[in-house]
């Protein structure tokens, strides 16, 4: 009976703090994942879809104009070119296939930027599974385009009005829903958060990012990069990029969270700066909370970073100093969008722009002969209205 607990720990972080109702579903999931994932049949189908449907491998692009601007060599790992426009599909495809093999009939999940919800519907349709997406009403407004796309693809959207109407509340609501239907329904967790085994499953499906980076940079440069920079909240794109380099002491790893407007309690999503360990949504992790343990709402213009918790594995890696937690402020992020657009013709997602903003601001941390890989987690299509309103008014 302790098996699960031991496996799902990263240092003190992790675990499975959920209602008794869900324990069986989690154990079933753990068992199924361990049994199904290594199978040839699964691997083949998964990799066929990643390649032919998703567009993997995604390129590792030497951004020459940006490099010139910065004074060192910058590569972008182009997850924006993955089908759906972000890294989210890696995970959604993997889990949807898993759900299908487990005999589930329906996927539920929550989404903030809409990217994960979209990826889930896409994967669900591919696998012939119904999909229902929980989304905070505030996020629905901010990501209206993605909401519409999900509807068109046949997903049911459940607006979540509780709390602040953002991701945190949507996760809670999905967990509640799952408690009602876990026998037939698969909760397709969108990031490396939630109770064990989700953080492990999601990281496993995202690991492909870093595996490709490693191979590609060796091909292009004959050596490992000096740094990898990724944005994140739950940490899935960052862990995906980092995992192949954890044992490489020469590769510095930077995790950039949403600084929001300023580093004050109500205006930020910088959980590593403003939070401390705690339990939310089934997992012990770094969380923004008040002195009594009440969860604090996060705030950032990037819907996908607007979560008060950092997943257990990234919490652990930051605690032990393997990963450096950093942040970028909203206004720096918008400027980074513009800089990237002018330099490279690319409009990054607001989440992704955090990683870019950090590098732009802290270029002094890197040396002229450094090779820096920015995990370009997604494209800015979903944020285009927000971005333009920022620059040109409404």
């Amino acid at each position, binding site marked *: *009976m*302790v098996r*699960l*607990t031991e496996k799902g720990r990263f240092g003190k972080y992790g*675990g*499975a*703090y*959920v*209602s*008794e*109702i*869900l*324990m*069986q*579903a989690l*154990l079933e999931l753990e068992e199924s994942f361990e049994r199904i994932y290594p199978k040839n049949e699964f691997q083949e189908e998964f990799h066929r879809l990643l390649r032919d449907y998703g567009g993997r491998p995604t390129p590792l692009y030497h951004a020459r104009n940006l490099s010139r601007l910065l004074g060192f060599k910058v590569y972008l790992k182009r997850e924006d070119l993955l089908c759906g426009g972000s890294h989210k599909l890696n995970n959604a495809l993997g889990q949807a296939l898993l759900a299908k093999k487990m005999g589930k009939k329906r996927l539920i999940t929550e989404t903030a930027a809409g990217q994960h919800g979209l990826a889930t519907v896409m994967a669900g349709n591919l696998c012939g599974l119904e999909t229902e997406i929980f989304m905070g009403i505030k996020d629905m407004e901010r990501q209206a385009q993605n909401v519409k796309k999900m509807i068109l693809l046949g997903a049911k959207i459940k607006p979540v009005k*509780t*709390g602040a109407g953002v991701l*945190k*509340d949507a996760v*809670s609501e999905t*967990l*509640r829903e799952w*408690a*009602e*239907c*876990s*026998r037939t329904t698969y909760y397709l967790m969108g990031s490396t958060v939630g109770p064990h085994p989700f953080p492990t499953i999601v990281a496993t499906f995202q690991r492909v990012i870093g595996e490709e980076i490693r191979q590609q940079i060796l091909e292009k440069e004959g050596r490992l990069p000096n740094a990898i920079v990724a944005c994140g909240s739950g940490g899935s794109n960052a862990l995906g990029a980092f995992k192949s380099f954890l044992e490489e002491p020469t590769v510095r790893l930077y995790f950039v969270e949403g600084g929001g407007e300023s580093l004050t309690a109500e205006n930020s999503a910088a959980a590593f700066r403003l939070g401390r360990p*705690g*339990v*939310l*949504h*089934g997992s*012990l992790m770094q*969380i923004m*909370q008040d*002195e*009594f*343990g*009440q*969860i604090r709402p996060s705030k950032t213009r990037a819907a996908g970073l607007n979560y008060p918790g950092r997943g257990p594995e990234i919490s652990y890696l930051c605690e032990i100093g393997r990963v450096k937690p950093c942040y970028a402020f909203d206004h720096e992020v918008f400027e980074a969008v513009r800089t990237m657009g002018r330099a490279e013709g690319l409009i990054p997602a607001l989440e992704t722009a955090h990683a870019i903003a950090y590098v732009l601001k802290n270029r002094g941390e890197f040396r002229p002969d450094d090779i820096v890989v920015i995990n370009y987690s997604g494209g800015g299509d979903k944020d285009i209205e927000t971005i333009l309103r920022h620059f040109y008014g409404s």
Partner: protein
Amino acid sequence: MDLEGKFRELMERKEGAHMAHVYYGDPREEFSLRLIRILAESGADIIELGIPFSDPIADGPTFQAACERALKGGITPTKCIDGIRRLREEGLETPIVVTTYFNIPYAMGFEKFLEEIKNAGAHGILVPDLPAEEAKPFLKLARRMGLHLILHVAPTTSQERLKGILAEASGFVYLISIEGVTGARFKGRKECSAMELIKAVKAQSPIPIMVGFGISVREHAEAMVSAGADGVVVGSAYARIYQKSLDNPYRKIDEIARLAREIKLGCIEGYRNRC
């Protein structure tokens, strides 16, 4: 009176137990204090005193709203614990079980938290997001301090885990009657699975069984207790009454008291109807 004493007393009286669940501080502390006293006077044998949490993932809309109101009103875990102390000072003898999500005691330090509630006069603690596996490190601690750390079982709990949970259970076992969240209503088929689960637990352990989630009327209570449960938990059903009159929830006290008496009657009748 402690939990063991209460269950012994009720057994002697051939009654099922009625545990009333209240989120403390909703909408204001004074109301909660009054509510708890009235419930205790009107047939609640145990008070489940909920410390509001910002993200109550095992609760349905009614209790979510209750938590939100209470927190907006400025409630804190410390004030809740003070509330227990006040209830005791004012002479309440009904056993109290504190319910809260894990991050609240974790934030204070679990041991300190247990100390505090114990000192204030609580008899147990119930953490909806602390399944047996995660509870393990705390079970001994609670026992040593003379507090019951209440474990849950649910219709989804496997035979194997049921055995493990019952081996560790203390005070009573909280039997989640349906797959869902608090405040749900029974639907025909799901009731069955609660009945079966009661039988399974009874067959393996002498520990008292309290059935919660979705119990809102006398008939539910009667059905559960007659199926072998030692009692039922009613919570959202009470909140649903006073939340209709939030500007003056006291106006609903009588109605709540009536429901409490009804539930208690169900617990008594259920016991009588046991086959």
